[in-house]
């Protein structure tokens, strides 16, 4: 009996050793698949998965297959922190693509940085994601998109130059870092270019009634309303504005970019974004084709990738390219490689500055009743 047990144990050990000998590189994808902005999560996950699939088809990275681990972080700090802890501690992941929303990315970045896990956020635009309170860059944290100071400034520039706006009204969600950041930078830039802010009203993320704010907008008569929030809030606010007969154009940021954006309600509005699928560059065309081939919407049509899918695709490719160039599954080496990398992504050429933010251009998109159309490109 004892001999049998010993034999079994030896067999078990051999099998376990075999299993651990097949190494994979695990990449965690933290995306808000549920919660207020599910289209962001689905796009991010799909863009990242497409990139991983393409790399695996070419043999993986450093001879190892890439294994994606997808977690739902709900665009909210607590679930994101739980997901991050789980993938780092339980799944022993060294590379995280995520999160989408700045307010979730910031706490995750603290954890990842402390544990030496590389995090590339595809779309969090708040400066505090990659930079700590003292202003120094967090060594393991990067992002694939431009940041709010740039985005807010671009928005203000467009409002003043193209929309000829002199008075702006700002609506913001005080509890959302992304919205607050954009609103602050827009306000500063708008005032610097000679405009006046005729009103600044805050609301909460669960609000559905904007009647009071819209009544104030009606009285203040601004030339543009800046509402840099996510599409779920934009849908409600613009719908109620149209019902009250308000014709003032609304402007916003990349949070507007969603297939769930209510085109009829937000028609006449503009938003700053990371890319446009109508961009004629070959990288964009190839990516749009590959994405549409792999992902279809509910009616069976090929999905057109939005900015979130594009940035997730770029972020994942960045990560895997850096691992390949560093030559080892060592987060210290990979982060050093990332800091110096020159990468040609679908959303533009990406190189990182001292704060681990990419230097790239922004696109302005116009919302028309039949779709979102390319309006202009603004370079840094």
């Amino acid at each position, binding site marked *: 009996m004892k001999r049998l047990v010993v034999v079994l144990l030896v067999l078990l050990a051999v099998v376990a050793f075999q299993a651990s000998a097949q190494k994979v590189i695990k990449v965690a994808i933290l995306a808000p698949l549920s919660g207020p902005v599910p289209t962001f999560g689905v796009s991010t996950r799909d863009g990242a998965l497409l990139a991983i699939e393409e790399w695996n088809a070419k043999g993986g990275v450093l001879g190892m297959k890439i294994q994606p681990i997808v977690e739902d972080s709900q665009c909210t700090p607590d679930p994101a922190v739980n997901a991050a802890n789980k993938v780092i501690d339980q799944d022993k992941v060294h590379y995280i693509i995520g999160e989408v929303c700045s307010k979730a990315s910031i706490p995750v970045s603290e954890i990842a940085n402390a544990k030496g896990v590389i995090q590339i956020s595809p779309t969090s635009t708040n400066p505090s994601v990659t930079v700590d309170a003292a202003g120094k860059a967090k060594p393991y944290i990067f992002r694939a998109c431009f940041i709010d100071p740039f985005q807010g400034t671009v928005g203000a520039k467009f409002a003043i130059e193209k929309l000829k706006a002199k008075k702006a009204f700002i609506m913001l969600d005080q509890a959302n870092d992304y919205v607050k950041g954009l609103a602050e930078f827009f306000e500063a830039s708008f005032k610097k270019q000679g405009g006046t802010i005729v009103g600044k009203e805050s609301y909460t993320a669960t609000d*559905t009634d904007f009647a009071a704010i819209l009544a104030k907008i009606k009285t203040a008569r601004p030339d543009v309303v800046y509402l840099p929030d996510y599409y*779920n809030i934009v849908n*409600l606010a613009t719908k109620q504005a149209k019902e*009250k*007969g308000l014709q003032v154009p609304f402007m916003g940021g990349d949070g507007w970019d969603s297939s769930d954006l209510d085109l009829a309600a937000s028609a006449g509005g503009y938003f700053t974004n990371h890319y446009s699928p109508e961009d004629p560059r070959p990288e964009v065309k190839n990516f749009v084709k590959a994405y549409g081939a792999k992902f279809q919407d509910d009616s069976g049509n090929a999905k057109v990738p939005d900015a979130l899918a594009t940035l997730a695709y770029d972020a994942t490719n960045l990560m895997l390219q850096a691992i390949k160039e560093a030559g080892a599954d060592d987060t210290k080496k990979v982060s050093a490689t990332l800091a110096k990398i020159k990468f040609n992504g679908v959303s533009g050429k990406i190189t990182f500055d001292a704060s681990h933010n990419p230097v790239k251009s922004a696109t302005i998109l116009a919302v028309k009743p039949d779709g979102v159309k390319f309006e202009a490109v603004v370079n840094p």
Partner: protein
Amino acid sequence: MSNPSATAKTVSTAPKQRKRRAPLAWLGRAFLILIGLYVLYVIVSNLIKDFSLFANIFTGGLQLGFVYALIALGYTMVYGIVRLINFAHGDVFMVGAFVSYYSVARFKLHLWPAAVIQGFPPVLSTLLGSITVILLSMVVCVLLAVTIERVAYKPLRDAPRIAALITAIGMSFFLEFFGALNFVFSPRFIPYERPFGVVAWFISKGIHLVVPGEEPPSDSVTFSNILLLIIAASIMVQLVLQFLVRRTKIGMAMRATSFDKPTARLMGIKVDRVISFTFAIGAAFAGLGGVLYAIAYSSIWTQLGILPGLKAFVAAVLGGIGSIPGALVGALIMGQAEALTMGYISTPMRDAVAFTILIVVLLVRPTGIFGEPEKEKA
């Protein structure tokens, strides 16, 4: 519900003694009175300064207030009968909104006459269809509430009141988070599809239709057909309920049960049925409120019922818990307080103000505006 007056005048031989209130209590009262006067001053000065802005905010407050009135009725009636604050009531309201969403978006129930009968006039079809959707939501809410009552509250009827209260809170959480599961309602914010379109008018030297593409003048007051529908529904519900409670047998049974349950039972009233009926009526109106709220604010999620439910509860307390006209008055005041706060202070402060009102009411006049103090059973 009103109680028949039963206080006999007693002749007291002892000299009347006024209790001397501690000076600190007078200080508290004076403070509250000052705050009240300040609030009144701010309101009136804003009214004079910019009337159209005030009027727009006021109409927003009316919309909120009448919806809260529908929910508050359920709270007040249930409390009157079983002395239970049914915290799950706000979630029945949420279920009403969701049922109407699914019947409109999934089954297109709001257009069934035109789909079934060829050549049916579209306007009439939408009207009938919408009424069907509303009735369906009300029926589902009634079934849900009666089930909740039988399963969760009835077994605890003789238990200490706190047990039933905790159960109500638990039932509320259960409904919210069970609904948030993906195979039930999903945790997303769902953009609501209205069964009929919104038509808005603006008042500026006469009433004109708001045409899409044209902006009404800045000093006009806008209102929509949704506001009118909400006001009409709420007032109709009030009248129906008053008639029910005053003029029908079941209404008399409800009043009797709320006055003295054991004696009502002795008189042959089927108390369990009456209680279930009360829950059912409250839930029907909450379902109606849910549909109207969803049409007005066009975004639903499973935790939709928490805040309006709590505010309606405050409204019921403000108006006098147990009193039906009190529920309406309290709800209107709550709606206006919320709208004025949103308009003149800031939107996030509205919840703070709503619950401050609760604290003030409990401090100053716990029985509410129309409430009667609990009668001592001799």
